């Protein structure tokens, strides 16, 4: 395939070069929304430099074919003070990966590297490498706006725009310049977020009139409207009641067929219920009292992390013995 030749020659430079899986944009009827610049998956392999598989600790990370993200010694510091150091892992496609750990361990910071949201913090400095389908996200010619079109984010507190439900969903596609019937795009996004039936009769109602759980699903629908390849979720359920949380978890199971998901959660049971792989971070007190640095301790299949973790710190955290 022509694309493989280009990647073999190391020419893949621009995020828009990266192809995305056509599965992700399932047109349900003819004339449905068509996204320009379809992005099928690039397989990491020939032509790309070999990426260390081992996370920076004693535990061997399992092989993941064709990861959506690969980080190599990713480190973030704020104003010179390191916040999280040396994170190396591979995030699989079309699965749910959870980041767990005590507060301050840097899990939110790392996830925000994946969509360049750390750029918004002037004092933040990112070192190391983050690759998205093999492309260095912090490369000189990468536009952070383009990155965020393909990597969506849902925040801890639902943050719908103070507009109608329709306008909320339509915002992303509009700024993206997506072609096609906006009504269909909105409907499809709402269906994917299991919200269509609840709101189909009141699309012009203000989003603020919805309950917290519905607002968060609206935010998920809004993120899905641009047909992203990845959805980053930063503690999406921590402001919600258990029923809403359950519905969103069910939603995540459905979504992972088309979207790779990375979720940060401080709720271990949620990570256990929902995720396929789990990464456990700690706050390393380091050499001095002030140096609170986040580090990756263990990363592996969720099953193993919760029944037979390799590292004793993981064992203690998931059993609730600290943190």
């Amino acid at each position, binding site marked *: 395939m022509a694309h493989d030749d280009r990647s073999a020659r190391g020419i893949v430079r621009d995020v828009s070069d990266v192809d995305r899986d056509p599965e992700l944009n399932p047109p349900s009827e003819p004339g449905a929304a068509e996204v320009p610049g379809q992005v099928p998956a690039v397989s990491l392999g020939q032509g790309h430099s070999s990426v260390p598989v081992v996370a920076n600790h004693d535990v061997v990370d399992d092989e993941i074919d064709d990861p959506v993200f690969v980080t190599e010694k990713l480190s973030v510091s704020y104003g010179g003070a390191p916040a999280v150091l040396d994170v190396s892992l591979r995030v699989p496609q079309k699965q749910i990966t959870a980041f767990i750990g005590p507060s301050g361990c840097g899990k939110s910071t790392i996830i925000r590297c994946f969509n360049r949201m750390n750029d918004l913090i002037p004092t933040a400095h990112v070192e190391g490498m983050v690759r998205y389908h093999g492309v260095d996200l912090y490369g000189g010619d990468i536009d952070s706006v383009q990155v965020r079109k393909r990597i969506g984010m849902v925040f801890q507190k639902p943050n719908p725009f103070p507009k109608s439900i329709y306008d909320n969903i339509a915002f*992303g596609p509009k700024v993206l310049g997506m072609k096609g019937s906006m009504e269909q795009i909105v409907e499809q996004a709402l269906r994917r977020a299991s919200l269509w039936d609840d709101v189909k009769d009141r699309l012009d109602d203000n989003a603020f009139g919805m309950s917290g759980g519905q607002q968060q699903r609206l935010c998920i629908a809004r993120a899905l409207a641009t047909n992203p390849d990845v959805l980053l979720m930063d503690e999406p359920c921590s402001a919600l009641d258990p029923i809403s949380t359950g519905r969103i978890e069910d939603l995540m199971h459905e979504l992972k067929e088309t979207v790779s998901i990375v979720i940060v959660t401080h709720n271990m049971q949620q990570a256990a219920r929902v995720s396929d792989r789990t990464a456990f971070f700690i706050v390393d007190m380091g050499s001095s009292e002030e140096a609170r640095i986040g580090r990756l301790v263990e990363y592996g299949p969720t099953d193993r992390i919760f029944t037979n973790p390799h590292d004793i710190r993981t064992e203690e955290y998931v059993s609730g013995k600290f943190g």
Partner: protein
Amino acid sequence: MTTASARPARDVLGKPSSSHRLRDRLFVIMLALLTSVALIVLAVLLINTASDGVPEISWSFLTSFPSAFPAKAGIESAITGTLWLMGVVTFVIVPLGVASALYLEEYADSSRWWNRVIEVNIQNLAAVPSIVYGILGLAYIVRGPLSLGRTVLAGGLTLSLVVLPVVIITAREALRAVPPSIKEGALALGATRWQAIWRQILPASIPGIATGVILSIARAIGETAPLILVGAATFVAFNPTGLNSAFTALPLQIFSWVSQPSDQFRLLAAAAIIVLLVILVALNAVAIWLRNRYQQRW
């Protein structure tokens, strides 16, 4: 030995002692007295003015031009002058104020010294007495570099200078009131910074900005000192014909009539004051209605 648990429930839950109650009462009475003093003073002024002025208000009063004869004098030119000034001020302060607020809030890098200087001085500018702006206007707008002469445009620009700092401050507050999560959400969807501001933050802050603008206009049209310096000869018996036209305004007319020796003119001044107050109250009412109706509770 009366610990809390040992005392009977009745003692713990009962009403406060009579000395407590007396003190509470006295406090409330004192507050009420102070408020009434302020209100009474205001009421006296108002009633006085109204009793003098209201009888003078008639359709002919509103539609006549000033004249040497009190019986024939009216405030039509003052009203239209004020309206023209309001127009000019609005057209100047909205773009300038909002743009400045946007720049300072979103784009100015606060580590640069000149931005910090601007920040500090906006507050100072808002506190400068309006007559200083009048002098500024006279020197640089009416005469000097702009040399617009004593025109509606010059008057409007001068008044704009008076209220611009307040508009900038209010607009910044309105922009700041929009939670950063909205901006984050917009950016996370792939909007550029400008798209996020133009499409989400600015629209969300419009009610706050509009309220601030209306209140500023209300203040501007009551400013007399700058207009005295910048305005035309006070006897303007025609409606402004354009931006280049001479003008008068309600505060100017009031000032002029009050300075006349004849008592009759003072009654007319009272009437004009009432009209001005009505306009001000109406503007404030609109601002309050706007705020209540459209204010976002985040």
